[in-house]
């Protein structure tokens, strides 16, 4: 058979179009599908994986969503007996911040309940996320910076952590948490100084000795709201236990109301 170049090209284009339509249609349908019935996510996390990665002492933000849930029960794997009850917000999501105090790999579990006390009406299954908690990197060695006149004050500045914005699904985490090695340059000290001044000027010191801190006991049932730049009291519960004395017996059962 003899195929001319334009004919072959045209055929290839039409085949590509058909292929795109066949492959693309399900993608479009997926994209337009309804809100999934259940989600359990954590920030920070590695993109495209089912595990969270973060630093020891760094807050992890857990977000739970199950259609019809009126209470979420979360456990974080670092204290097996502790479970947190989180009440959903108006959008149905339960958000909880947890901090791991030591490095390691933990399993965080989420169970949704149709009962606001997380006692009855389990909504299976139990969702599990693996959390990898890394030890903080060693503090950088102090550098001696010699500056020519005018001599600025020596300032040690730690950059503030980035604000965690409400985002769904969780944002991708940078591949490496270790900052790149600084380049050797004569302008580096000046750049560091400028950055330090910029941070000092832009930082909202908020509570420094101004009495702005408000302690607030947040809502019970284990849920709590972190108030930015503030201190709060967080209430957690373990499931209460009840014991009935042995002398309790049913004397009679009769039909009828009280």
């Amino acid at each position: 058979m003899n195929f001319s170049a334009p004919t072959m090209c045209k055929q290839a284009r039409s085949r590509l179009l058909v292929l795109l339509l066949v492959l693309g249609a399900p993608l479009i349908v997926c994209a337009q599908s309804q809100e999934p019935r259940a989600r359990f996510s954590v920030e920070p996390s590695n993109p495209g994986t089912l595990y969270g990665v973060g630093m020891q002492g760094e807050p992890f933000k857990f977000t739970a969503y199950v259609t019809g849930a009126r209470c979420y029960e979360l456990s974080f794997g670092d204290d097996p007996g502790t479970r947190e009850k989180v009440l959903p917000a108006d959008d149905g999501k339960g958000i909880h911040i947890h901090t791991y105090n030591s490095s390691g790999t933990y399993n965080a579990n989420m169970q949704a309940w149709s009962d606001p006390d997380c006692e009855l009406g389990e909504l299976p299954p139990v969702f599990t996320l693996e959390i990898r908690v890394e030890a903080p990197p060693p503090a950088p060695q102090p550098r001696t910076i010699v500056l020519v006149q005018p001599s600025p004050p020596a300032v040690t500045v730690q950059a503030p952590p980035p604000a965690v914005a409400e985002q769904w699904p969780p944002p991708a985490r940078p591949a490496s948490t270790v900052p790149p090695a600084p380049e050797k340059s004569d302008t580096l000290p000046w750049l560091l100084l400028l950055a330090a001044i910029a941070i000092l000027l832009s930082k909202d010191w908020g509570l420094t000795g101004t009495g702005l801190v408000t302690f607030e006991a947040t809502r019970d049932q284990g849920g709590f709201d972190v108030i930015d730049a503030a201190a709060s009291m967080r209430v957690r519960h373990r499931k209460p236990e009840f014991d009935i004395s042995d002398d309790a017996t049913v004397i009679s059962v009769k039909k009828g109301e009280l």
Partner: protein
Amino acid sequence: MTTTLGEALTAEDKSASFLKHQSIKDGYDQAKAKLDKKRKKLNRPALLDTEAPNDALKKAFFRALDIALDDILGRAWAGWDELRRLADLEKTPPDEIHRVTVSDHTIESQHEPSVDIVVDGIPFHTFDFKVTAQLKVKSIDLQVQAGEITAIRLGSLELGGLVKLGDRKLLEKKMAEVTLDEHVMHLSKPIPIRAKKSHAKMDVAIDA
């Protein structure tokens, strides 16, 4: 009955002065030391010198024990073996109402609320409370329908208890009668009688 466990336990100490115990102050000092270490430049430790944390701790403590006494009674009976047979809907039709008369007895409930001092999302100290309450109940009738406790009638109720921080005793409430607003309490939210199966499932979930 709208009396909560917190109110009943602190009936003789409404200002919750037991929360000014030395062990609580020690907790503030520990939090302060940690804050001092971490946030020296922000001068935040001074915040714990004010009265604000005391008030907040009191508020948090009462929220943790904001559990209605009838809810405690209902939940205890809901897990009681003798009532479980009445929850069998195959043997008792859902429209049938039963009045169950129960002998006088005592219920012990144990609660372990923890209150964390959190600054910028980071916990700096945890107060682990242990609360034990004994509820002595007399002349009890329960109304059971469709596997749920829908109403409770009590002749009298006495309550005593203990509040501990770790192993230190903060408050001991001697057994005393609780005034009942009404002797028949129709539960706005009926309490389902629990099957044993649901408990077993919870245990598995904890181990997972």
